[in-house]
């Protein structure tokens, strides 16, 4: 019974961790950029959701109607004006620009929201129910549903729309995509926008699942890295599997060893299969 309980918990959390990694995988796989500010983006998403929820007195999930488009816009502009220009100078300068962004955002959040821990409370935060002797947390179930729906929407967008196809084509061969009439700079900006939008959703989930403060970003950056590298860059199914593996590690290792186990797993994957489990 303990085994099944662990499996269920890990599975439910898997969606949540995949969601944290999905924005990172897009940027690494498509724009070929290591975005060190992704953790801060997630935390900004959490703060936005928290402010809107308390300000308007609505259900936290409804806040996505505002945060997702807003974060998309910020991401688009950021890539179009700033990061895109740094990328022309090579991968290291671009990496360091995101590094700069990450510390700027960290302090900006500290100035705006102080260092106090925050969280997003819901009526179902602590409720659980039992099915066949297995305890299921309502919150984990909600997070799982949010994550799966977002990832499905993202995958529909990438596979069924002209812009989504253009994004995949650009990831494959940017010059050939330009020859098919794609504006590469714009596609990169859209990809960053989508990544930011996913960070908005991930941020909401982070806020509902645990407390957060302006310096929490680093931990989520590492989580995203682990999920992305284990799953293989740019692969959505791989990200989901990696999310579940990560979730299981957290459940089995608990608070003190969960992170450590996943880091060691990441290093092992890097050594054995550097392109990830499903990577080619």
């Amino acid at each position: 019974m303990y085994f099944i309980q662990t499996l269920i918990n890990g599975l439910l959390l898997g969606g949540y961790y995949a969601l944290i990694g999905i924005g990172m995988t897009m940027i690494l796989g498509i724009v070929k950029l290591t975005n060190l500010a992704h953790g801060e983006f997630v935390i900004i998403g959490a703060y936005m959701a928290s402010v809107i929820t308390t300000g308007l007195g609505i259900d936290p999930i409804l806040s996505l109607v505002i945060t997702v488009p807003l974060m998309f816009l910020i991401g688009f502009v950021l890539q179009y004006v700033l990061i895109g220009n740094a990328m022309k100078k090579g991968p290291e300068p671009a990496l360091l620009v995101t590094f700069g962004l990450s510390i700027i955002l960290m302090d900006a959040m500290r100035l705006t929201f102080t260092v106090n821990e925050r969280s997003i409370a819901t009526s179902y935060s602590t409720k659980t129910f039992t099915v066949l002797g297995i305890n299921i947390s309502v919150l984990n179930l909600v997070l799982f549903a949010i994550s799966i729906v977002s990832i499905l929407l993202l995958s529909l967008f990438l596979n069924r729309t002209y812009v989504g196809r253009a994004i995949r084509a650009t990831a494959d061969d940017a010059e050939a995509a330009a020859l098919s009439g794609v504006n590469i700079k714009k596609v990169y900006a859209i990809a960053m926008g989508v990544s930011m939008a996913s960070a908005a959703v991930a941020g909401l989930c982070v806020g509902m699942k645990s407390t957060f403060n302006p310096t929490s970003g680093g931990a989520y950056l590492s989580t995203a890295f682990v999920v992305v590298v284990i799953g293989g860059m740019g692969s959505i199914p791989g990200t989901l599997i990696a999310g579940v593996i990560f979730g299981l590690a957290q459940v089995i290792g608990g608070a003190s060893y969960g992170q450590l186990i996943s880091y060691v797993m990441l290093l092992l994957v890097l050594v054995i299969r550097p392109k990830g489990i499903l990577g080619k």
Partner: protein
Amino acid sequence: MSEPLLRIDDLSVGYGDFIAVDGASLQVDEGQIVSLIGLNGAGKTTLTSAVTGLLKPTSGKVYFGAEDITGMNTDKIVSKGLSLIPQGGRCFNRMSVQDNLLMGSFPRSARKEAKETLGHVYELFPVLKEKMRDPAGSLSGGQRQMVAIGRALMARPKCLIFDEISLGLSPAVIKDIYNRIQSINERDKTAIILIEQDTRRALKMSDSFFVMLKGKIVLSGKSAEVDAETLKEAYFGI
């Protein structure tokens, strides 16, 4: 006489201090097949890269119809009706054949007719219809070239540039592909520029030709009228 479809006027392109294309001029009329021949490293690919906006020219002008397209972004140029099929085809290997083709109709002007054009492409290359769900990376070299041609056709171009389409293909496949290029030209009146090292084949198919050597156009004329000796001299620069 009416305006030529594509006019390249005294175009120069350089990489740093190295000048790869040095004041090249050429023109293509509507519905014409033109061949651009020359040795390896003569600057043919650099010239077409500059024409399609992949490289920025250092001086000179490119006109498409009456419009100056010099230094425009590639995506703009493609949507105006000038497409390049790059060396090796460069398919999106991880995407399905159908997705590759649909990518070609990315320019807004081509999207409305995408379904109809897709039908034409499958008519031209029936083998692609059979393999429409397969990833392009799993196809043979010749089939990948067909995907690349089909992708370019999806944008409904007025002018198509083929950069060494025969490279690495078997003679039978080359012959097949050239037949289809001919039929593209006949059916849609698409102007075609063939970049080739295989002089004989290119001359047989084209209306006029240009010979490039060390970055310059050294000889041009009607393909049917050239004599072998003059051509050889221009081609090798002896």
